[in-house]
């Protein structure tokens, strides 16, 4: 992989969703709808014609209002959605932290979940066994590692999930608003980890509502509004436009 080649390249990406207004719940409704031929859905473009190149080693922030398409964009990068139009290119291993512990099963122990979660992310069992100890150390859940994760406190649960996602040493880290949870100690530990990630030349994409985080950690920020890129620039530029956007909204509300 050359250094000039972007690790993620989106080209004219559009993501269309079909919004189904109301499912016919009864047979009678189904028939009446069938005979009246009325459409019960509309198409909605969550991401519109977005092109974005993320070079290796960059820490990119994605900000925007609720429902602006940030998370959809992240899920497109993660490969969860296949975009309706456009192309997505990802070079390198990628760890999606879209929701911590998404692959955890409540009845399985922490140790078992480490393996299962790793396999879900595409790593081999051997690779996961090699990293098991460092994951357990970071998660710091003590003897609970051999208990089913349903007995974990929410903090322990998140620490384990964060540890699994980051200790596998991915080249690209996608983080969706997860750092808002957890106590200060855990957050500090996570940011420390992210900092080390940055310093080792890895790419981080951070979706957040916290403008302090954006200013502190990101070198480039993309502001998304109504599914399109409004600003692509320095944190200060993007944040100031975003604040104006929010102010307009607040004024309009009054």
């Amino acid at each position, binding site marked *: 992989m050359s250094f000039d080649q972007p690790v993620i390249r989106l080209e004219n990406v559009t993501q269309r*969703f*079909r919004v189904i207004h109301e499912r016919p719940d009864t047979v009678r409704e189904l028939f009446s709808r069938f005979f009246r031929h009325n459409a019960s859905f509309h198409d909605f473009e969550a991401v519109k014609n977005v092109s974005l190149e993320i070079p290796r080693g960059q820490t990119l922030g994605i900000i925007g209002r609720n429902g602006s398409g940030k998370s959809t964009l992240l*899920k497109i990068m*993660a*490969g*969860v*959605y*296949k975009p309706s139009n456009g192309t997505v290119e990802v070079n390198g291993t990628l760890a*999606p932290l*879209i*929701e911590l512990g*998404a*692959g955890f*099963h409540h*009845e*399985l122990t922490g140790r*078992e979940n480490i*393996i*299962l979660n790793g*396999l*879900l*992310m*595409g790593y*081999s*069992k051997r690779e996961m066994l090699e990293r098991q100890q460092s994951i357990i150390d970071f998660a710091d859940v003590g003897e609970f590692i051999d208990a089913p994760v349903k007995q974990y406190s929410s903090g322990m649960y998140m620490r384990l999930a964060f540890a699994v996602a980051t200790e596998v040493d991915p080249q690209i880290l996608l983080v969706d608003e997860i750092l808002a949870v957890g106590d200060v100690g855990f957050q500090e530990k996570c940011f420390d980890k992210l900092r080390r990630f940055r310093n080792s030349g890895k790419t981080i994409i951070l979706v957040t509502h916290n403008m302090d985080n954006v200013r502190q950690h990101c070198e480039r920020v993309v502001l998304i509004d109504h599914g399109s890129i409004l600003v692509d620039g320095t944190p200060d530029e993007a944040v100031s436009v975003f604040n104006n956007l929010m102010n307009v909204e607040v004024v309009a509300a009054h």
Partner: protein
Amino acid sequence: MKELFVDSYQYRELIWALALKELKIRYKRSVLGFMWALLNPAFMMLVLTLVFSTIMRFPIPHYAIFLLSVLLPWTFFSQTLSYAVEAIVTNGDLIKKVAVPKLVFPMAAVVSNIINLLLSLIPLMILVPLMHHPFYWTWLYLPVPVLALVIFTTGLTFFFAAANVYYRDVSHILQVVLSAWFYVTPIIYSIDMMPAHFKWIFKLNPIIYVINGFRLSVYYGQLPKYPSILASFACAFISLFIGFSLFKKYQETFVYYV
């Protein structure tokens, strides 16, 4: 079709882990644990043997063996489908958050049920000598019908798991289909009991070729004839081809419907 083998191989560890997870959870918090995988079919066999050797007498010697030789593969077939029809829907949360090939979920359902099928053959091996039924060397042939059965079931599994994403009615329809299918398949009776001019209707049922090998080798001590073996694998691969093609065609849109 290539994708099926490439992805299954690449994600074999995940499929295996998901299958074991299923079994683990099924027997979790029970005192006997994994033993239930053996005890369940053993008790079922005990009940059937008692019923058919004392209460309901069929003019078929060692009726329990006659029945179980195809009831066990049928149970595999119906349990796999009943369970796997929900494979994509129940893993919906995961599919929405992690990019993972969707086929691992139906495959894991098939694998966990294969383990159950193989375990259920153990009590049958004990029952055969207990009932003074000869233990035929044709048991060695069983891997062949097992293979055909697994391929056949996997194909339908893909079909039903995909269809259920769009229409949740499918899982209900499946239960009706399975119970009707059970009675039109010579499981509790023999196809020879049917009037000759009806037999051709039974021959339209694809699963009879697949399970025929089980009864022949375990109960009759015979091997199926070549046309029958060929028919069983033809049915199996047609099922797999259609099932997986449809699954593959629609898998990208599962994420919007789960």
